[in-house]
C-alpha cells in the first residue's frame, strides 16, 4: 500500500510517500488512520484532529468506513485551498 501525505500533514509526518504493509486488522480508512498514528510522534501529531483530515483512496474522496487493500494508493491531506 502506498500512503501519500500532503501540505502540513506532510511536514508533520516528515515524508511525502510511504510504502507500507499494514496488519490484517487494518480493513478500512478508520483502522488505517489508527494504525498510522502509532508509527511515530509526527504521525500522531498529524492525525491528532481528524476533523481537518481528508482521505482519498485511489484518487477518490472517501469516508472513514471505506475499505483499504494492499494495492491501494491512500492520500491523506488537509482541506484543500486551491483556486
Amino acid at each position: 500500500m502506498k500512503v501519500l501525505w500532503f501540505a502540513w500533514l506532510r511536514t508533520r509526518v516528515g515524508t511525502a510517500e510511504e510504502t507500507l504493509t499494514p496488519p490484517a486488522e487494518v480493513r478500512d480508512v478508520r483502522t488505517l488512520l489508527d494504525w498510522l498514528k502509532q508509527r511515530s510522534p509526527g504521525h500522531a501529531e498529524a492525525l491528532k484532529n481528524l476533523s481537518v483530515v481528508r482521505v482519498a483512496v485511489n484518487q477518490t474522496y472517501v469516508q472513514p468506513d471505506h475499505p483499504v487493500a494492499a494495492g491501494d494508493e491512500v492520500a491523506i491531506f488537509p482541506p484543500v485551498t486551491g483556486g
Partner: protein
Amino acid sequence: MIRVQREDFDVGAELKALTAGRHEIGGAVTFVGLVRDMAGDSKIGAMTLEHYPGMTEKQLAEIEAEAKKRWPLSASLIVHRYGRLEPGEQIVLVITASAHREAAFEACHFLIDWLKTKAPFWKLEDTDQGAQWVAAEARDDKAAERWTKP
C-alpha cells in the same frame, strides 16, 4: 478541457481558441484568480501551490463534467497553476461559453466554487510572519454548498 501547469496562461488567447469557429456561442464568462498581497494582517511575499498530480486532473475533469450536465455549455476550460507565485500573478482560469449568458455565468461561478473545495491544491504563504499553510475557509464551503441539490 482541463490543464494543470506551472506556466502562466494568456486569457485572451485561451478565450479565442475556445470559442473559435463556434458561432452558436453568444456569451463567454471568464474567472481569473490572482495572488493577493495580504492575508488577514500578514503581508505576502509569495505563495507556493502544492497539488496531488493525478487526482487533481481527475477532480477537475469530474467538476467540469458536472457543470456540463447541469448547464447547456458550448465549451469550457479550467487551467490551474501550481508552484511558486508572486502577488498579482494568475492562479486559476475558468471559462464557460454558452448560447445564452445566464448558463455561462452560473456554470463559471459553480466551477470556481466547487474547485475551491474539491480540487487537491494547498497554498503555502510566505508571509512577513513566516511560511504558513493557508487554512480552508468556511466561506468557501458555504459557497460550494449553494450548488448541492436538495
